[in-house]
């Protein structure tokens, strides 16, 4: 139920993000979700793409530091209380969230999470009847 997410280390300087996206664009890789976590000097670009292994390889060829990490994706009605409920389920089980980001599509919202224990998180969410997405489902959204 986990989804491979690409993480790219980038220096915080202008044009760098463009270069990553141009590399992916040339290889016709599609991006479902993207977020940047940054400090004053560097950032981590996180991407969910159509072919993460291919994307990793082409970025590596261009000397980027890339890793694939597994994240969880949940789909829920586009209302704050559903996001809140999801977070509550996890915190009740002492599962901590390393980071999360989300995007909405019509009346639905897709939430991406990375937890300190993804397996436990998946179990807890399923028990509480949250709707999880696998990779192919996520790309159809």
């Amino acid at each position, binding site marked *: 139920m986990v989804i491979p997410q690409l993480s790219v280390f980038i*220096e915080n300087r202008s044009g760098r993000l463009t270069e990553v996206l141009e590399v992916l664009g040339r290889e016709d890789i599609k991006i479902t979700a993207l977020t940047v976590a940054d400090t004053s000097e560097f950032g981590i670009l996180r991407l969910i793409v159509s072919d993460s292994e291919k994307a990793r390889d082409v970025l590596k060829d261009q000397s980027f530091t890339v890793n694939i990490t597994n994240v969880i994706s949940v789909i829920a009605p586009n209302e704050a209380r559903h996001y809140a409920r999801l977070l509550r389920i996890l915190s009740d089980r002492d599962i901590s969230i390393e980071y999360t980001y989300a995007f909405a599509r019509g009346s639905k919202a897709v939430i991406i999470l990375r937890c300190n224990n993804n397996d436990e998180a998946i179990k807890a969410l399923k028990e509480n009847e949250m709707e999880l997405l696998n990779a192919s489902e996520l790309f159809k959204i």
Partner: protein
Amino acid sequence: MEIWNGHFECMDRLDLKKVQSERLMETVERSYFNVPYYRNKMQAAGLGPESIGSIDDLHRLPFTDKQDLRDNYPFGLFAVPMSEIVRIHASSGTTGKPTVVGYTRHDIATWSEVMARTLKCAGAGRNDFIQVAYGYGLFTGGLGLHYGGEKIGASVIPVSGGNTSRQIQLMRDFGSTVLACTPSYALFLAEALQENNVDPSDIKLRVGVFGAEPWTEMMRREIETKLRIKAIDIYGLSEVIGPGVASECMAQEGLHINEDHFFPEIIDPDTLQVLPEGSMGELVFTTLTKEGLPLIRYRTRDLTRLTSERCSCGRTMIRMEKCLGRSDDMLIVRGVNLFPSQVENVLLEMSEIKPHYLLVVDRVNNLDTLEVQVEVDEAFFLDKISQLEALRMKIQENLETALALGVKVTLVEPKKLERSETKSKRVIDKRKF
């Protein structure tokens, strides 16, 4: 202008040569019989004390360099029993082991003598207040100036380095007339005075003796204008004695080398041949009177040229130009000696990273800054900011401990830093010398 030791400082150069020859022969003999390192090296070259009949034979002797001091760490090159050593100083080395120097009581007297000459060169005397803002401790700057200042009868204020607000307070309240520190700190102080709105008429400074790092003529003019003083360049290195090896006089036309104690040569750093007077090359010193740690043909790695033309001040001692370059990769950052290999050693010890780095040295607000860029290795990159920050802090702490210097570590993308087996670019020095 008064000269501390006119007998030697203004000696006829032919007479001086006799003194140098006699002293060299004594030094070679003592080194040969008391220091196995020198004896072995001379024997290997087929030489003995009898091979040296005058200063003209000096070129026959093998060189000594920092590596030899390291190989004989800590006291292996000392030429007297430790019971004769009354002081030990040390400076940073390339591999974490410092370069150690020892002084006998007589060496301390020599050091005080050459520092007295230095301060007299700068026009200081018994009525001066000398604010010594060089660091006191293992570094030779503070204590060197201190002993020289006492020798000429000045009032020495041993404030040591740093603590700018106290420097300003003492400068104002005590009426310091002579400032001794690194040139970059002098500029920093000048600006601190401005920022604190100190009335220039409250400051009695007349002259500054600045050294321990390279500085340009432009920087000199800036210091002279901002502090309204005469800025005198002094030169020394702890291996030879510390500050006091050479000093400018008020003419500011080169630094007079105290060559009755420290004999200079200029060599081509590649061929190691002695170059004629006036050629630019690497400065090499042979100590002529030192007891604790005699040095024979010690390679300083500093690049300069010499002139024995008579100076308008009346001194006959040979003069060297301001040193602005080096024949090795040593950097001087805030007066601290730094070799890129020291950084590399720290990084090599950390399994999380690869030793791909770049040093960026700059001067911001007149203080040197050192940035170390380190590449993020894929094996350690696990997509968490907190982890990368922790790594950055750890590298920074390890470097600061090893270098005794504040460092800013920046994580950079891999393979951005140039690699080459032969000559990789490890340093960018943005300072203008």
